[in-house]
């Protein structure tokens, strides 16, 4: 029985250590940068006898997730990890996992998609998979990766939820950066996360059929049932986060506020950019600029009501997406925030700032430029552009 201690872990190692303490029955994975460290550590834990799990080295990510689907259908606590092209290769099976309502936890070390070939961080992978029915949780640092990996098993396996969860952290920025992580003792994790109790496990004594044909006369009813469950999971996720906070002295929420008192404009961030943005906000607050920060942790299901509440009363909001949805209005987060606010009588102007593509650094100066733009929009009460790319040389962009 280990006591609570602070370990030097990078984001990937924090995920692996948390998974080990969550005692999965089955891990099926295929290594891909920048997630590789996770499955390397987990295979070490299994080989060294520290973790009693079936470790399946699959021949592809499609097979890895397929194996997870089978394992979870049997009632096993199931885990995988991937990134970028690996997640893209899983795409078909992502829908199957969520539609079967199978709890599976998957770490994603967010990485850009080809082409050009790029191993560095952006969120093209998970944002591109936003409509596949998985819960998506985004983390800022290794501590959050650790804490939310544990919570993700609770969320996924909760009988009010029963959905797979992607627990995301930015590639390299978080996955390969070593930080002090306060870990829980094994017994604390055990008390928070009891063994899984499956609802309809595959069992020869009590046979069930999973994955049968859904004819047009039944498909919409089955899909709407899934939609209701996904929307309702927001409440359960909040409850589980509150329980975790109270049990272990943390202070998490699905939308976190930073320096929002008296703020007239705000940055809305997701993932590791939030840390840099906080420094920028501190700097600007010291100069008297009325700017605050909102960090979105839960992107699927999107906490629409909470977003409306958090953004109401502001004059302008800059949404920092770490990807582009080509040919629309910047990133998905920008578009969805705008859609969520559209029917509010008093709503802020919302401008998108896709930033940090393919591992380009997002720096404090970027957030200062974004905030200056937001203050101009607020002052003139006019929005002239839906979005502007940040960290790109050339006309129309906010420079490197």
């Amino acid at each position, binding site marked *: 029985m280990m006591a609570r201690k602070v370990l030097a872990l990078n984001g990937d190692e924090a995920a692996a250590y948390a998974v080990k303490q969550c005692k999965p029955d089955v891990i099926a994975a295929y290594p891909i940068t920048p997630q590789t460290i996770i499955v390397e550590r987990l295979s070490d834990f299994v080989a060294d006898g520290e973790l009693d799990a079936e470790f399946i080295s699959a021949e592809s990510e499609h097979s890895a997730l397929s194996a997870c689907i089978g394992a979870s259908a049997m009632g096993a606590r199931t885990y995988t990890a991937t990134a970028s092209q690996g997640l893209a290769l899983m795409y078909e099976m992502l829908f199957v996992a969520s539609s079967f*309502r199978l709890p599976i936890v998957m770490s994603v070390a967010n990485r850009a998609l080809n082409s050009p070939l790029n191993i560095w961080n952006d969120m093209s992978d998970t944002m591109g998979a936003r409509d596949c029915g998985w819960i998506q949780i985004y983390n800022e640092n290794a501590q959050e990766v650790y804490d939310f990996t544990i919570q993700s098993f609770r969320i996924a396996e909760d009988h009010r939820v029963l959905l797979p969860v992607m627990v995301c952290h930015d590639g390299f920025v978080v996955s390969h950066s070593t930080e002090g992580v306060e870990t829980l003792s094994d017994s604390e994790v055990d008390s928070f996360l009891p063994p899984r109790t499956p*609802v309809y496990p595959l069992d020869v004594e009590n046979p069930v059929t999973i994955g*049968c044909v859904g004819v047009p*006369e039944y498909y*919409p*009813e*089955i899909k709407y*049932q899934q939609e209701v469950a996904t929307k309702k999971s927001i409440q359960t996720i909040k409850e589980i986060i509150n329980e975790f906070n109270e049990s272990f002295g943390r202070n998490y929420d699905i939308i976190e506020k930073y320096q929002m008192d008296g703020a007239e404009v705000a940055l809305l961030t997701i993932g590791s950019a939030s840390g840099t943005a906080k420094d920028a906000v501190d700097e600007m607050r010291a100069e008297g600029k009325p700017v605050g920060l909102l960090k979105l942790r839960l992107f699927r299901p999107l906490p629409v009501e909470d977003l409306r509440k958090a953004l109401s009363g502001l004059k302008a909001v800059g949404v920092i997406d770490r990807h582009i949805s080509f040919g629309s209005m910047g990133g998905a987060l920008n578009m969805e925030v705008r859609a969520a606010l559209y029917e509010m009588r008093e709503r802020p102007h919302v401008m998108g700032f896709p930033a940090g593509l393919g591992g380009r650094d997002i720096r404090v100066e970027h957030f200062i430029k974004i905030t200056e733009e937001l203050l101009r929009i607020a002052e003139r009460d006019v929005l002239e552009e839906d979005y502007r790319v940040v960290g790109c040389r050339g006309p129309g962009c906010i420079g490197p």
Partner: protein
Amino acid sequence: MKTWEEVPFAGYILEPGNAESYRTGDWRSRQKPVINQEKCTFCLLCWIYCPDGAITRRESKVEIDYYHCKGCGICAYECPSGAIRMKSEAEEA
């Protein structure tokens, strides 16, 4: 028909072996096989070839299970003694 609240969890089928209750006979669009029992030699080729198990084998004769027969016509095609003919549903009625 069941509402989204009434359909089983995630569309699971919780009752084993219930495919039998699915009326695939509804799929027949125009023709159905009819057996002339006088010509039938009980060779059972139709029973072997039927892809849907819709030929029922009795003590000394075969019968067609129209609840499941999709009307594909394979039995009539394979019957060596011409005992099975495809007839239009209208003609039968």
